């Protein structure tokens, strides 16, 4: 219980913001894609992910791997398959509509005109098929018809489906206030349980609504019946008001129907709450669940060193940090995300002992520091100073016994070195790298590279690390 309280108390404002933001994103996805195929596929992917987590928890290596692969592929497929729908949202005139507000479909569609036209055609036994699209893109499923783009009117609709009109056998697509296409061929339903009284128009209407969120209105030529197809359901419509109501419901047209508004508000509130609960659960599972431990070696970064001060020596260059957190966070942690920074602002020349505190260590969110080793770091600081030091050659090997080196001139004789004052006080000569004597048999010149020791000292700018060595060889008497 104490652990739960400690876990709750450790929640930062960033965590609250993190949960709220992701909950809102999830809620907006629901608002934008509800009652569409995209939403159904998203739900499917969410279930796949959930099962994959369970498989991981149970240690089902192959299963979790396979489900993980399918989930990743499905996420990719959803972008490809539903690219048109996604594009239609991203290309919306009001981009803020993605983040705020509730989309309404073609609120100005003249529902009454359509209903009156449909029942007029029913009275005349004129066959008709009118499609009112939802959020899904129909381009993937419908056959190309004839572009019409005419304003909806009773006369126009009746004339389109007039038996002598060449396009009367196809469907008419209605978007907003306009009839966009006519003579459109729809995919036929393959269902076997349809009554024999339903003809090709009914099968075409079902074929479309089974695969999309569109609504289709069918007028039976033989019986003069009006039927509405939505999803895989077919409903017989008895009057204009009923058809108007269904069309308004499909188009999301706001009615002065308090009950319907209340129902929608309750639905959205439930969706918002579900989003919050789901994201909170995921957040806790990521950041607090299944505690794991890891030890990492992290280099120490020394901060706020005064420009005239040099770090001469340190007891350690890196420390071991022991971290705990949820398995997911621990697995995803990168050494580059962890920083150990020691503040040298209060350091003095000479030996300094610093104690590493949690404030000196930067960790990714959700990771808890459990131990540091070593906790104390010795840092030796020195004041930077310059000195001229003589150069001496470091010979190795052997001169032939009959020869002797009698004279040596090094150019330059001295070099200027910069380094910590205490270090430089202990250095009186700069030696070259080893020069071999074995190949020398007469006077000559060599170029030698200087070897700075200790490595904390360096040349003052302008001084070359190479010197010229002129030597004189004589025969031994």
């Amino acid at each position, binding site marked *: 219980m104490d652990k739960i309280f400690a876990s709750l108390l450790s929640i930062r404002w960033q965590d609250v913001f993190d949960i709220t933001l992701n909950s809102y994103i999830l809620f907006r996805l629901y608002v934008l894609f509800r009652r569409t195929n995209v939403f159904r596929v998203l739900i499917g992917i969410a279930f796949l992910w959930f099962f994959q987590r369970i498989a991981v928890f149970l240690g089902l290596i192959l299963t979790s791997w396979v489900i993980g692969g399918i989930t990743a592929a499905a996420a990719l497929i959803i972008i490809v398959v539903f690219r048109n729908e996604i594009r239609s949202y991203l290309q919306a005139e009001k981009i803020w509509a993605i983040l705020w507000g509730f989309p309404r479909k073609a609120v100005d569609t003249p529902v009454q005109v359509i209903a009156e036209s449909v029942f007029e055609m029913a009275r005349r036994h004129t066959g008709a098929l009118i499609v009112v699209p939802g959020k899904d893109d129909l381009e993937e499923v419908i056959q190309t018809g004839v572009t019409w783009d005419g304003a909806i009117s009773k006369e126009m609709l009746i004339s389109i489906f007039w038996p002598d009109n060449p396009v009367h056998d196809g469907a008419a697509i209605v978007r907003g206030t306009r009839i966009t296409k006519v003579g459109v061929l729809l995919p036929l339903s393959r269902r076997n349980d349809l009554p024999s009284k339903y003809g090709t128009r009914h099968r075409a209407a079902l074929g479309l609504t089974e695969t999309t969120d569109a609504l289709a209105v069918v007028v039976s030529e033989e019986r003069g019946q009006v039927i509405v197809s939505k999803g895989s359901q077919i409903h017989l419509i008895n009057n204009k008001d009923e058809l108007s109501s269904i069309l308004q419901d499909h188009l999301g047209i706001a009615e002065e129907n308090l009950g319907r508004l209340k129902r929608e508000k309750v639905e959205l509130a439930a969706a918002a709450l579900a989003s919050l609960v789901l994201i909170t659960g995921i957040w806790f599972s990521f950041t607090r669940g299944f505690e794991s431990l890891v030890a990492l070696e992290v280099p120490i970064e020394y901060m706020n060193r005064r420009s005239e001060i040099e770090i001469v020596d340190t007891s350690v260059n890196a420390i071991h940090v022991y971290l705990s957190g949820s398995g997911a966070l621990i697995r995803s942690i990168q050494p580059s995300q962890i920083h150990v920074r020691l503040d040298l602002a209060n350091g003095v020349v000479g030996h300094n002992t610093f104690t590493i505190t949690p404030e000196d260590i930067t960790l990714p969110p959700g990771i808890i520091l459990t131990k540091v080793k070593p906790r104390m770091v010795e840092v030796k600081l020195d004041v930077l100073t310059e000195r001229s030091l003589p150069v001496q050659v*470091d*010979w190795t090997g052997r001169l032939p016994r009959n020869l002797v*080196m009698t004279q040596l001139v090094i150019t330059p004789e001295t070099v200027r070195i910069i380094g910590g004052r205490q270090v430089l006080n202990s*250095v009186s*000569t700069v*030696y070259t790298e080893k020069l071999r004597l074995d190949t020398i048999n007469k006077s000559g010149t060599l170029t030698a590279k200087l070897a700075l020791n200790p490595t904390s000292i360096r040349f003052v700018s302008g001084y070359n690390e190479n010197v010229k060595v002129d030597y004189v060889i004589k025969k*031994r008497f």
Partner: protein
Amino acid sequence: MNFSSDWGRIMRLRLGTLFLVLFFIGVNPPLRLQAQDTGGTTPVTASKELTLVKAAMCEGIKNSSPQNQAIIFSAAIGEVFCFTSFDPVPEKSFIYHNWFNRDRLSTRIRLAINPPRWSTYSSTTFREADKGPWRVEVTDQDGHILNILRFSITD
């Protein structure tokens, strides 16, 4: 710094500073005459500073002179000498030969010098482990460096 231990560990000091090279009066007449002119007192010589006129690393000393002067010596010869000659020596005093292996003081040898001129030397023996760059700092009794002789011990 424990000089006594270095003294005993590494070096065999040939305290043979002993050899006093008094040149014949005819070799250095001006100084001799000068001393004489001053009636054996030392105001003139005392006012002169101790001057190192010759310093050399060599393989040996023969007849008060350095033999086989060089700057590279084989560890096989076992011993190296540092020869120094002063003229004038204003008063009886000491000089030091400080032998350094790289930057580590190996031994410090005190050598007596006497007026009016004096030559003296010190030496050290080497082992295989002593190979590398060396230097001898010649200082007066106050520690002022009069000369630095650099040499190497090799195979």
